[in-house]
């Protein structure tokens, strides 16, 4: 498990780095694609809840560290996405090999659509009532499309890592 967690930490750091180096620069319709939220969804779909929560928390906190939005909000969104994706993953819903080709991208697109909304609603807890005035709808749509397109390759990486975790457990 320690080996799997180490691997998750390393990949999460790379995901956060790619987020800043690539997706912050290459915007689509002026919107940043939140790879740091897709990653916990992908890990969650493997069915490994604790690793998914760890990935969501770590990627969210590392992202929040560089952002001017309230610290911890992205991590909160990451945790929620990771948990609910892992519930589906437990049922084998998002399994890349056994489920239909469109299932994983569709689940990821739903996560991408809802994630910015969760972020804005969570902002109320941080007494920030103006987050919705950003590009909420654009953000939801662009992230849904981007998550749909990126879901399979990112989930493939997550499944490769989950295989390592399962081996370590035996």
């Amino acid at each position, binding site marked *: 498990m320690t080996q799997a967690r180490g691997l998750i930490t390393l990949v999460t*750091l*790379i995901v*956060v*780095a*790619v*987020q*800043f*180096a*690539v997706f*912050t*620069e*290459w915007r689509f319709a*002026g*919107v*940043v694609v*939140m790879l740091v939220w897709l990653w916990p969804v992908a890990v969650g779909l493997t069915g490994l*809840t*604790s690793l998914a*929560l760890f990935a*969501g*928390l770590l990627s*969210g*906190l*590392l*992202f*929040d*560290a*560089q*952002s*001017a*939005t*309230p*610290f*911890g*909000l*992205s*991590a*909160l969104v990451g*945790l*929620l996405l990771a*948990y609910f994706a*892992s519930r589906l993953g437990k049922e084998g819903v998002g399994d890349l090999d056994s489920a239909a080709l469109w299932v994983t991208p569709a689940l990821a697109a739903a996560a991408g659509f809802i994630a*910015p909304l969760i*972020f*804005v609603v*969570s*902002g109320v*807890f*941080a*007494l*920030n009532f*103006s*987050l919705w*005035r*950003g*590009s*909420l709808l*654009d*953000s939801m749509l662009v992230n849904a499309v981007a998550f749909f397109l990126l879901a399979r390759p990112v989930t493939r990486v997550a499944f490769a890592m989950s295989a390592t975790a399962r081996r370590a457990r035996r």
Partner: protein
Amino acid sequence: MASDRSRRRLFLVGIVGTLAIVTVYVTGGVVAGTKSIARTVVSPFSWAADFVARPVGHMVAGIVNYSDVEAQNQQLRYLLGRETLQADQNAVAAQQLRELSQSLHVPVAATLGTVFAQVTVLSPTNFSATVTIDKGQDEGVMDGMPVVADGGLVGRIIGASSHSATVRLLTDTGSVVGATFGNGATSVLISGQGLNNPMSVTGIPDTASIGVGGLLSTNGLQGGLFPPGLPVGRVTKLIINPGSSSYSVTLAPTANLNNLAYVDVVLWEPST
């Protein structure tokens, strides 16, 4: 295998922990140190990813935009020549303004020192309009200082470390600037409405003489966040609602906030 109950417990612990972090942040607790550590951890990976991604990005952008870049370059050369001529004329006026402001004891932006800085990071999220610059406390940059570029106000410093600082742009939803127009008799508030949205203005009476294209600049009121006279934006839309005695105004920032590469930090601290 962990049971459902233990997984749920782990999830709840995570949620409560994260909410605690948010609470500490909101109440102004010790989060700055945590942020700094996290930045240090991510920076080598960011640097490596940037090292790989940037040339690829530049190559793609170069191929796609070559003719635009060349046309832009010619236009910029022309504008540079024109601005050089204008700068020479302005130097005389600036000298007169300096002498006048000194005699009146009024801080004017043109008389204040600046720190030249490069924009290193654009806002990483869709919900805040910020940029990071490569100058910080060691170069004299402090919290609250105004930042200008491209002929107008860009925003203000909201966090400075030793060699970098974060600038909250005018378009950020948390940005509010006190401004004035025309003869300076009316003071209004300009609020940011998000990264890709125009700013809004409240409090312009329907008797005010202002039209589309009108320039608003900082009012520099006692205790204000900005020195007077910094151009903020130009009116793009002016509507008067039935039954209202004031205009509903939207305006575009004077500076192009979508294409910031270099900025000047004005060495002026808000009075408390």
